């Protein structure tokens, strides 16, 4: 009897634990899914007022440790949104910080927990996502949209298709440029008022500034996995292109033409001949940023949106010591380029049409409405938050810069000049695969001391041939 009782108690305890485990894995069944439909009938029943509301989910909420100014700006924004869209109920959440935000979105999409609309995807991702269907076709919303003629058009190619369909609209455009540290230039005996414009001038100044004993480097070269990204701008600065469109919709690979070879050879020379870079050519992105912000490097490839006094404070640096310049060019006949990139608004393909429209309306309102944007910029200025990106409304850029009290005048002028020469990455199909394929040969070029021009050409040709073979629908000679 006693044994039976013991057995029953043990068995009940074990079954109970097992059921709790399985229930815990199953997750809550009463949360709304990404389409905003709650499966909890108790919530749906008896709420006739809310039945007319469209529920959407966003990931706009700032991080728990966000500065006071960002929280204030967010609250002000949401107050305006609630006033403007009384029939839209927003479930807003914070996405955890990290560089795997793309994978977080995909995970959420698979689990039906993705936001109805999102403003974080980079424009370079859009062609891939058009192909894999993880973002919605928003052509019908775009075509009747009041701001479509006022949005920046820097990366229209990536967010729309040749047959006139639209999949995203811009949130902002940022520049990736050459950042310079005027104090470091001076410390190395250079003159920040006479910045280099050509490769020869750049090498001369870089070599002069570099002193490994300090350590102080002329230029921070990006040799890690992402090296094809800055290499694109260097190919432009040599007067070349990475790809050229064919008539049949495919692209001819061009990074192995003379201009591309020139750029690659110059990269090798910066490391070995002019000795103006860090020796750790493959160091990671965070360390590269550290070096320029801490004053260990005079020039660096840099995403301008990361230039912020709050970020510089931990290095004891002032924003007024920094500046932005377009790429130096092989010779003065070539227009000095800047690389433009940015974030876009995308819509969840699994949401209903009403939810998609609601999300599009809300997100374009907070991104394009002049009154709301002016209030946001005023809060940023008051709270000392820098934002150097070009807003999605190209007609409001001057206003934004005029309201910004944290950005030195010199940088404002440099930004306007950079905007004029900004070019977006080419958006051929398999563009990201092309960049990934270039990563290893570029590292080989950077790491080999006595590499000849023929060897460089051979490496680039081999990569081009591999791409032609692997992606015949995208690349054709």
């Amino acid at each position, binding site marked *: 009897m006693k*044994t039976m009782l013991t*057995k029953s108690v*043990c*068995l009940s305890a*074990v079954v109970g*634990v*097992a059921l709790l*485990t*399985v229930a815990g*894995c199953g997750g809550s069944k009463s949360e709304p899914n990404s389409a905003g439909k709650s499966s909890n009938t108790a919530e749906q029943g008896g709420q006739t007022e809310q039945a007319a509301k469209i529920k959407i989910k966003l990931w706009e909420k700032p991080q728990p440790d966000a500065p006071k100014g960002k929280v204030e700006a967010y609250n002000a924004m949401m107050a305006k949104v609630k006033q403007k869209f009384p029939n839209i109920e927003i479930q807003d959440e914070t996405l955890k910080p990290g560089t*795997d935000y*793309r*994978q977080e979105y*995909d995970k959420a*999409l*698979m689990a039906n927990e993705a936001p109805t609309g999102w403003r974080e995807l980079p424009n370079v991702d859009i062609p*891939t996502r058009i192909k*894999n*269907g*993880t973002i919605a076709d928003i052509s019908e919303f775009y075509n009747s949209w009041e701001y479509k003629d006022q949005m920046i058009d820097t990366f229209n190619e990536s967010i729309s298709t040749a047959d006139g369909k639209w999949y995203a609209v811009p949130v902002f455009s940022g520049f990736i440029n050459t950042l310079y540290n005027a104090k470091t230039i001076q410390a190395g005996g250079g003159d920040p008022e006479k910045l280099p414009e050509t490769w020869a001038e750049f090498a001369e100044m870089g070599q002069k500034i570099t002193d*490994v004993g300090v*350590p102080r*480097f002329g230029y921070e070269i990006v040799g*890690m*996995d992402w090296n094809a990204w800055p290499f694109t701008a260097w190919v432009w600065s040599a007067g070349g292109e990475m790809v050229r469109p064919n008539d049949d919709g495919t692209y001819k690979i061009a990074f192995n033409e003379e201009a591309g070879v020139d750029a690659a050879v110059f990269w090798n020379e910066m490391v070995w001949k002019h000795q103006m870079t*860090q*020796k*750790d*050519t*493959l*160091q*990671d992105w965070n360390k590269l940023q550290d070096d320029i912000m801490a004053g260990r490097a005079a020039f660096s490839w840099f995403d301008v949106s990361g230039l912020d006094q709050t970020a510089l404070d931990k290095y004891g640096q002032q924003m007024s010591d920094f500046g932005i310049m377009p790429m130096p060019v092989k010779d003065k006949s070539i227009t000095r380029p800047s690389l433009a990139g940015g974030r876009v608004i995308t819509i969840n*393909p*699994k949401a209903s049409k009403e939810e998609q429209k609601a999300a599009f309306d809300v997100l374009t309102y907070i991104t394009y409405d002049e009154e709301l944007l002016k209030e946001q910029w005023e809060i940023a200025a008051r709270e000392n938050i820098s934002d150097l990106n070009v807003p999605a409304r190209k007609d409001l850029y001057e206003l934004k810069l005029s309201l910004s009290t944290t950005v030195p005048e010199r940088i404002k002028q440099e930004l306007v000049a950079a905007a004029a020469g900004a070019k977006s990455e080419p958006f051929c199909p398999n563009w*990201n*695969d092309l960049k*990934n394929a270039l990563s*290893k040969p570029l*590292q*080989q070029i950077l*790491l080999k001391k006595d590499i000849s021009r023929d060897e460089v050409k051979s490496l680039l040709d081999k990569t081009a041939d591999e791409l032609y073979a692997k992606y015949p629908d995208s690349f054709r000679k």
Partner: protein
Amino acid sequence: MKLLSRKKSGNDQFAAWVFLLPALLAFLIFKYYPILLGFFISFYEINIVELPGKFVGFSNYSRAFADPDFYAALRNNVEFWVIGLILNFWPPIILALLVNEVRKGKTFFRMTYFIPAVAPSIAILVLWKYIYSPDYGLANAILNYFHLPGLTWLNDVALVKWAMYLPGLIISGGMSMVIYMASLNEVPKEMYESAMIDGAGVAKRIWHITLPFIMPIVKVMFIMDLINRFNEAAVPLVYTGGGPVGETTTLILYALKSAMNNLDYSYAITLANIAFVIIFIITALQMKLTSREK
């Protein structure tokens, strides 16, 4: 009496099953289910919007076996394993044997080698990354002090794997050493005494008594080491990101990059499955050889 003992044995079995069940469920849900799901998904081209996507049969596997980067990653795994055997596998055994021979201060030596193993391994990896910095790292500072030229360490294709595994002596050597020392404590002292009476020196005692006695634990550690080498991703990710020129991209790191950089989830899972099968086959072979020897 027989009935009573049979009943008691039945009760014991039932109790054992009852206590094993939660762990078994956890293993099934969190280990076996993802493995099986991974194999299932590898036969599809994943469509995130409409799971699982398009059935493609073995085409992900054919793609892997025709992919030169796959073979490069596999070669890296094998090279890491060989270098790991030299730098990280045998030194703790030698260290354990040496410390075991020490009469006074054994505890001191054991603690000294064990304490670094307690520190978070990622923190030590990051620290060594700075030590290896060719621009301002401690390693080159020491070389320069002795008027030797600095090396590019993690940027050097020939040197990178060795440089990566050298800190393993500190990170994991202590833990392995302690395990071997525990095994050494089980060697009967009478065997050493008889050997000494027969005139056997230290080397002969180690070769003929100590090593055969601890061989079972060495074999287990060998299998664990092999599994860890083929699952290696965190170490190259932290140190080099898989470079230079893909020299430290392992199979699992290649799978991770396929997922993270290319959003190619099907291919990533396929690569992980292949790594799993390789480890499984090698482990099974190893265990079969071991049981044959017995």
